[in-house]
Structures are given as C-alpha cells and as structure tokens.
C-alpha cells in the first residue's frame, strides 16, 4: 500500500517559478500566432487570405499593407505561414495575446489603449484573490483541457490567488469558452446575471473571441461579441495554460499588456 504523502514529498515541488523571472513557462517549442511583416508582402498577393479557415486575414484597402491580420480570429493552424510565398507571415512562438480591447487584436498602426478608469476601480478588489466561474458555451474541449491543466502541479493556479468556483454566486470573473451555441446562450446569460457586482468577463479562446472555426453555423454564434461586456480577450486555439495565466494576471494589472495593435511588444 503506497503512502501517497511520502510519494508526493519524495517527488518534491513540481511547480514552476514562472511568471517570476527565471521560471519556465512550460511552453518550449509551442508555436503561437504567425508573425506578420507587411514589408514583405507581394503586391496584390492574396494567397494567405484564401487559405485562412476563419477569415482572420482580411484584405485591406491600404495599398502598403495588402492584408490586415485580425489575431482575434486566428486558430493558429499555420496554414498561412505555409501558403505565404514571400515570408511575410512566419511561424513564431508568440502565444501571449491577451488584450483588454478587441481592437488591440487587429493590426493597426496606432498604439496604446489605456485601461479605463471604471475597469480599474472594479479591479482593485481582485488584485490578490480572484474567483472564476467557467462556462463552456460550445467549445471543442481543447480550451477545457488547458483550463483543467491550470490546477496541475506545474502551473498551480492557486499560488497566484486565483481559484475556480462551482457557483456564479461566488464568482468575480466569468470565463467563457466556445462560440456560444443556441441552446447555451440562455444558460450563459443566466450565469452572468447570477453573478454579483463587481464582475468581469473573459473570452478565452478564438471561439469565444470571434466564433472560431465553428462560428456562424446553424447552431452557433460568433463568440461573446454582442452578448456580454468583455473585459479580456484571449485568442488561441486553444490558448495554452501559460497564456491563460498571463491573461489573468494582465486582467488584474499584475502584468503589463504586451499586445497592442496586433503586435507583441517586447
């Protein structure tokens, strides 16, 4: 009969030090959203637009930039990096794309989007302790798998003061995955309604941000866009646990936002 306590003690601490500096975020080798270098685009080239399954690469009217990526629609399938003949779209390891404003996922030349004063007031209470109610509104289970990984010994979300709760009555943050199918629309809205103020909403995964691969069907919506007031958008298909942690800490203003205007700032 094994003594599990001894088993655990013998194996020692498995938790990574990340997000403290020097820690391993556990995402070695993980491919993120493609890096876009508009300078390399060929004139009138639309190869990437044709292959993108979710329409994340939209042709733009601007002559200098033939396509404008919307990372909120990217499902990280890498098809565009294979289709691009000039290397304007290349694979990268950038998966940390959490933003507060939806526009920060769209490629623009403009920069900063400051945190609104009202949001900052709501966030003050949650900086050290946040309770999340997760609702699956029609995902493929990939996001749930990564969310369930947050409580494994490697990431150990509890050490950051963030917990998942069983009831919306105890929740501060509503974390939604999936493109909101028709039968789940009402339960999702009821869950939001059942949360006491102050409350936040996070759209996790490309399906929740913009509908993803399944969006726009006969039974699916296009994510949370016109449904709930979203405080954090985290695209990814699925966003890995480090990206989710980075997003949550960003929401709580414990980490700075790195993506502006569709670009990751160093």
């Amino acid at each position: 009969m094994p003594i599990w306590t001894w088993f655990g003690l013998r194996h020692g601490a498995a938790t990574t030090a990340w997000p403290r500096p020097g820690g391993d975020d556990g995402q070695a080798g993980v491919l993120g959203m493609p890096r876009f270098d508009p300078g390399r685009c060929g004139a009138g080239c639309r190869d990437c637009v044709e292959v993108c399954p979710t329409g994340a690469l939209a042709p733009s009217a601007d002559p200098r930039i033939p396509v404008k990526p919307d990372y909120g629609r990217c499902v990280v399938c890498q098809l565009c990096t294979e289709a691009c003949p000039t290397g304007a779209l290349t694979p990268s390891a950038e998966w940390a794309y959490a933003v507060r404003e939806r526009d920060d996922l769209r490629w623009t030349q403009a920069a900063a989007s400051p945190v609104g004063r009202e949001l900052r007031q709501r966030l003050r209470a949650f900086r050290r302790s946040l309770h999340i109610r997760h609702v699956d509104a029609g995902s493929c289970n990939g996001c749930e798998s990564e969310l369930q990984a947050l409580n494994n010994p490697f990431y150990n979300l509890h050490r950051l003061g963030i917990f998942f709760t069983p009831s919306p009555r105890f929740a501060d943050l509503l974390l939604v995955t999936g493109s909101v199918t028709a039968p789940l629309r009402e339960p999702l809205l009821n869950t939001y309604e059942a949360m006491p103020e102050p409350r936040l909403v996070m759209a996790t995964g490309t399906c929740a941000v913009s509908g993803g691969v399944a969006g726009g069907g006969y039974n699916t919506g296009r994510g949370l866009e016109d449904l709930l007031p979203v405080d954090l958008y985290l695209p990814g298909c699925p966003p890995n646990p480090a990206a989710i942690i980075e997003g949550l800490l960003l929401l709580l203003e414990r980490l700075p936002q790195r993506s502006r205007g569709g670009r990751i700032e160093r």
Partner: protein
Amino acid sequence: MSAELIVLAVIGWSAAAVSSLSGRAAGLSRTLLVAGALALLAGTVLALPDGVGPLRLGLVFTAPVTLRLAPEACWLLAFGLVPATLAVTLGSPLTHGRLWIFGAALTLFGALGVFGVTEGAAFLIAWELMSFGGALMVLSECDRGGQDGAVLFMLTLLELGAVCVLAALLWLGTVHGDLDFAHFADAGSALPPTARYVVGLLFIAGFGAKLGLLPFYEWFPGVYGRASGATGVLLSGVVLNAAYFALSRALVVWLPGDAGEGFALGLTLLTLAVLTAILGILYAFQEEDWRRLLGLSTAENAGIACAALAAALLFRHAGLAPLAGLGWLVALLHLGGHALAKGALLLTADGAHGVTGHYRLCPQGLLRRSPWPLAVGALFAAMSLAAMPPQIGFVSEWFVFQTVFQGFHLPGLAGPLALSVAGAGLALTAAVAFATFIKVFGVGLLGGGQMNGPGISAGHARAVGLLGLLVLAAAVAMPWELVALEQAVTAALPGAHAGALRSDWLLVPLTADFAFISPTKLVIAGPLLALLPLGLWWAARARRRRTPAWYGGLPRTSEQVAITPLAFSNALRTFYSLIYRPTEDMRREHTGLRYFVRRLSFDHRVAPLFGPALFAPAVRLTYRLAAWMQGLQSGSLNLYLAIIGVMLILILLVPLL
C-alpha cells in the same frame, strides 16, 4: 350561569341531531350545533376555576342524569371545543350530507357525557355514543372505495377497550354495590393492591384504546386517512381530551396509589406511554398524507401526556405531592395546547384539500397564495407541535422534561432510572416531532414557486390564524392561566399547588433555582431584538438586485424538482429500517427491447409493527373460531331446539348457584 349555558348546549345539540336526521336543511342543523358548542365553550370557560356543580338534566325517555364538571374537565373541554367549533362551522369538505352533522352532534354529546356524568352506566353509554359518533362522521365521509375495514378496525379496538372499561367499572362497583362515581374513591382504597393494579391496567387498556396507547394507535392512520380534517379536529380535540380525562380520573382519583400498585401502575403506564410516543412519531414522520401524519402525531402527544401522568403516579406513590401535582398539571397543559395546534393544522389540511382536491403533502405554493392569517396560524401551530419556543407546545414539553428530570427525588433505583430512560425516549420523540413538523410545514405549505391560482379559502385561513394566535396567547398568558387549575390540582392531589409552577412572569418546575422559561418575556424581547437586523435589511434595500435562483443555468423544469415527502423522510427510513422494514418497488415499462424505457412505476411502503404481529393473527384466530362455530348453523331445527333447551336449563340453574 355556566349551568344554564350547559343546558343550552345540550338542547342545541339535541335539536341539531334531530333536525339533521329529519331531513331538514343542513344549514339549520349546523347552526344549532355551532350554537350549542359556543354555549358550552362559554360555560366551561366561565366555570373555571371552580367547575360546574351537580346539574340534573332530565332527558326524554330516560332517567335524569347528573352532570358534574370538574375544573380540569372544564379546562380540557374548553381547549377541545375551540377548534371543534371552528371545524363544525367550516364543515367537512368531503361530505355535505347531514349524517356528518348527526355524527358530530353525537360525538359532542358523548364527550360531554364522558366529562360530566357521575354514574357508571351513563358513562358507558356516553363513551359508546362518542365512539359511535366518530365512526358515523368517518363513514359519512369515506367513499365506497374506502370502506376496506378501517372504521371497523377502529370500532373493534374501541369495543375491546369498552369491554375493559366495563370490567373495571364493574369491579370497582362490586365494593359498594353501585356504579356511582362518588363512591369510587373509597372503592379503590377498599380493593387489595393486586386488584387495584389489575383495575388500573384495565382502565389503561380501555381508555388507551381511544388515546392511542400502543398497540391501539394502529387504527389512527386508517381512520384519519379516510376522514376529513374537520373530523380529525373533533377526534384529536374533544374526544382525545375526554379519554384522557377519564383515564386521569380513574388512576388518580379512584385508585389511591399508596401501596405498591401505585408504583407498578406508574411504571407500566410510563413504559406504554413513552413507547407509544416514540412509535407514533416515527410512523408519523413517514406519512405523506396530512391527516394520517397528524393522526399519528395525536397518538404521540397522547403518549407524552400519559407519560407525565405516569410520572405523577410515581411521585404520588413516593409521597412527593408537589411533584405529582406538577406532572398532573403538565399533562393538562400539554393536551390543551395540543388540541389548539392540532386543530389548526387539520383545518389547514382541509383548506389544502379545497385547493388541490387531495390531502397529499406536496409543494403547491399554498402559503404564498393564501391569506396571511393562514401563514401565521399554521406556523405557530407547527411550532407548537414541534415544541419550539415561545409556543404552548414548547411550554408543556419543557414542563414534561422538567418533571421527568426531577426523578432523582424518588427513593431507590428503579424510579429514577425509569424516569431517566423515559426522558431519553421523550427526547427522541421531540427530535423526530421537530423534523415531522418541519416536513408538514415545509413540504406541505412552502415551495411551489411556480404554482398559481386561488389559495386556501378565507374561512379556513381565518380559523387557522385564530387558532395559531390562541396557541401563542395560551403560552404567553400561562402564568395567569394556571390560576384556573388551582382548585383542580389541590382536589386531585392534596399538597400540590398550581401556583408553584409560576414565579411572576416565569414558568418554573416548582422552584426557579432548577430551571425557568418565560414565553411572556420572550414575546416582548424577541421582536425588540429583531428590530436591528430588520432595520439593516430595510436600509440596504436600494442596493439589492434580484435574480432567479441558480439551477445550473436554466430555470427549473418542473415542480418535481422540489423536495418530496419521501426524500425528506428517507434518511430516517433507512436509519430505523429495523422498525420500519421499508420496501420499495420499481418497475419499468419498455417499448420493445429493455433499453427503451417509457415509464417508471415506483412504490414504497413501511410496515406497521403491531398490525402483522398482533392484529392480523387475532383476526385470523377470530375467523377460525367463527368457522368452527359455524358448525352451529347447521340448519337443523332439532339442533336449534336442543340448544334453546340447554340455555333455558342453564339460565334457570344460575340463581340456584
């Protein structure tokens, strides 16, 4: 004044009985009945604390009857008549025939007789009238399908009891040669102790059949379950009180209890009473029908009152008159409060039947849909039966425990031990009773948030509200009500005083140093203490946002999601399965292969204790005897003539012996 009112009552009831038989409008009969009840109520209340002196009533076709209502009889009668009047006013929802009124008139007549007559033969007639009236009321209400012998079972057990009472009365009567109750006090002393014990046992068995002491409580669910709430009010109010009064008079006044038989009787009665209380409430908790649950709870409460009486007997035997008086008084308080509260809940059951058409406990939103007096009344009544402060049920239950806890005053080991064990048993019944009345109130009245429609009728609501307020008032005014029983307790148990139970506004078990409660003060302090939280709640009203209850995202699919009576009782059902022997039966109906289930049939049952063990074999024995004696019905004229001849010779020989 009281005497005149009693006469009025008798006249009114006779007229009601006659008019209901004669086929006149039921309204007139009912009015006469109610008027008579009101008159008697007024009479008995005014008669306290002295009681009503000898009153000769000349009845048509019989010899005159002398009525004498002792103060405790007035007390019990008054408490029983309040809900009875309301019940008769509201009438039975299951029948509009006049047979019910006739039955009610007979029952009330019989009860008055049991309380008041001073002579044995008249007593037995009154006793039988009371039983017969009750049976008539139930028979008038149960439909053809319900006549499977429940009423017959009740009458059989009551007849058994009547035979025991007859035997006991005759035995006491042999001492002085007549059946006058005034002589019975000496008659009891003249008998040897063993004979006194047997007489006492016969009285316990006889009156216990009506009170529901084990094993006689088994007729309660069957009969209550076929009657209406109004009938139940009469059965658990006036009739129960009458039976108790008769038992307490027989054991306390007629049997002196100073020799060893007093201890033995007290011990026997204590055992029977506590076991009745435990079994009664355990089976009541499993019931899902308002009436059956409340009927078994009546048996439990009768058990508690008899336990207090048994404690009084034990204390009297040890010469501790004040404690004996305490026990004796406590039983009266208990039955008084019980009549009010039980009446309120049975009338609530009738009201529920008026809305839903059945008597099952299920969440129908009745409390929400009905006028507010119903909520107040039902809540106070349920609190009282669950022994929650500050209601009268709590007062009497507390007093019962205080009586039992003072068993250490008794000499020897057996007495204190018996009372301690009894206390443990009573604690068990108190706990299960608490759960039972939460079930009644919670499952029967609360819930049902999505049901709409009319609620319980205003008449029933007001009646229940009135009874509930009386329940509270009886507790709050208890220090002053005890004055009414001063003379009674001193007459029954010399050396005891009713005033010993109070100390200013406190209620004490003879001394304030042992323990005390004060519903009077609680009723003042409680609302004052509630002001602060209410104020805070009111102040925060602007910031509140209402959202529906959380059910996992979607609203409740149906009322089936609510708690069901079986779900509430299931834990105890499993825990006490040794007593209950529960059975469950689950059948599935399929469409084709067994995988495609279309319908589920679920059935559940608990097995009664004495039915299969005691009564069924007795019935079978009776059938066998009857089958054997059927041989006499041979149809042969010669055999019949021979039998007549033998009987003649025997009758002629008897005087020679």
